């Protein structure tokens, strides 16, 4: 199943400049694993050593923060949009 992942500017050097990329997966965890297979460097940037998201990374599925859903186990539908954004903005 194809899912679109939107890449923030700060991570684009690790994707060869691409602002979005198509990957596979039915949960956020699978989508991110698929993303890391395509772009190895990204894993260290957004995941900590235990495989959890770093604390200043926000991930959204269809505009909703995954922490309001099932975190990394949040289901991702075919054709959905997953957005990765820095958490430090605003306020």
């Amino acid at each position, binding site marked *: 199943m194809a899912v679109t992942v*939107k890449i*923030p*500017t*700060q*991570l684009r*050097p690790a994707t060869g400049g691409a602002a979005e990329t198509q990957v596979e997966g039915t949960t956020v965890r699978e989508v991110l694993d698929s993303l890391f297979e395509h772009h190895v460097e990204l894993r260290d*940037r*957004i995941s900590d050593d235990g495989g959890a998201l*770093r*604390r*200043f*990374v*926000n991930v*959204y599925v269809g*505009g909703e*923060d995954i*922490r*309001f859903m099932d975190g990394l186990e949040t289901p991702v539908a075919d054709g959905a949009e997953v*957005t990765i*954004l*820095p*958490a*430090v*903005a*605003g*306020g």
Partner: protein
Amino acid sequence: MTAQGLKCRECGAEYALEALYVCERCFGPLEVAYRQDRRLSVAERRRRIQSGPQNIWRYSDFLPLAGGPPGPSSRRTSRAGLPAGCTPLVRADRLAAELGLGEVWVKNDTANPTHSFKDRVVSVAAARARELGFEALACASTGNLANSVAAHGAALGMDAYVFIPADLEEQKVLATGVYGGKVVAVRGNYDDVNRLCTELSAEREDWAFVNINLRPYYAEGSKTIAFEVAEQLGWRIPDRVVVPIASGSQFTKIAKGFEEWRRVGLLEGELPRMNGAQAEGCSPVATAFAAGHDVCRPVKPDTIAKSLAIGNPADGPYALELARRTEGGIDAVSDDEIRAGIALLARTTGIFTETAGGVTTATLAKLAARGDIGPEETVVLVITGDGLKTLDAVRGSFSTYEIDASVEDFTANVQGAHPIGATR
């Protein structure tokens, strides 16, 4: 002190003083790092401050501008733009007496050009944006920032684009649009607006989003609250400071201000106990504090304190760490307590604050009632915004008399004290 670069608070990676806010390595927040390049005596440092203008630029030695205070001549008497700060520190003896406390001061930041502390942070961000060559200011706002960005845009001749949640109080929308910028009401809450603006800031690299790509500079502006409080108390650190928490940025930067002045010898003693104040309807930081967590779980805000309605606070982890390190705390109060807090401050000090100040005052009352505050303590209550911004919060909270223009009617009705209808 001279700003020498941006540094990641998480991993220490260093970056140039540009419009950057996130570490590319670990996504941590970037903060301005300073170099102490001159060995000035304490007396000399004080003199430099005291000979400065009556606004935040008197503290230019501690702010991240390359060219010193902004203005055509770059003299220390700059009054360019929309000068903020140097707001009154008011001794609140009647408030202290009512709460059974010793010494309480109100830092009245409603006395800024657009009636909230946001003018401090926007002044710094806008001045830095100018230095970096930006021609447009933008922001994601819960209202007070919208007022300030629109006004600074007008004062500096820069375009302003302000993004607000569509359900914002009418007073805040009107007090933004009047300055002539573009006001964009986004269907969603502040966190939705913030997400949109974070995405937009990547697409519109020619815009200075004051609280996104200019955030490291913007946040430094809040240190000036600490500088002013210390100077107004006679170069002294108070024992306790009560501050509202939305993103947690102001809360942490006030402590940073005291810390920096301690480091250069302008102040002596311990950091104040830092007490954060949140509304129960949006209390991710207070909840994490109570649970002993070091990160915040985001919430969907539902409170009358809309200027504090950030469900996903960027500086939450640092606010938690600070409250614990200084043996302060972070509390939450209900909407009814917020209304009571507004009334308490108004009737004991003559200062009318918006809902955020109601949160702060109610939190002070809660700490006092709980016996957390010692009788000898010097306590500073930071009142960040004006009550005229959230008039709905006091609607119906008191009665007025309506009479004919005759002494008889006055005597008959008012002295008999029969209220006729509630104020509309």
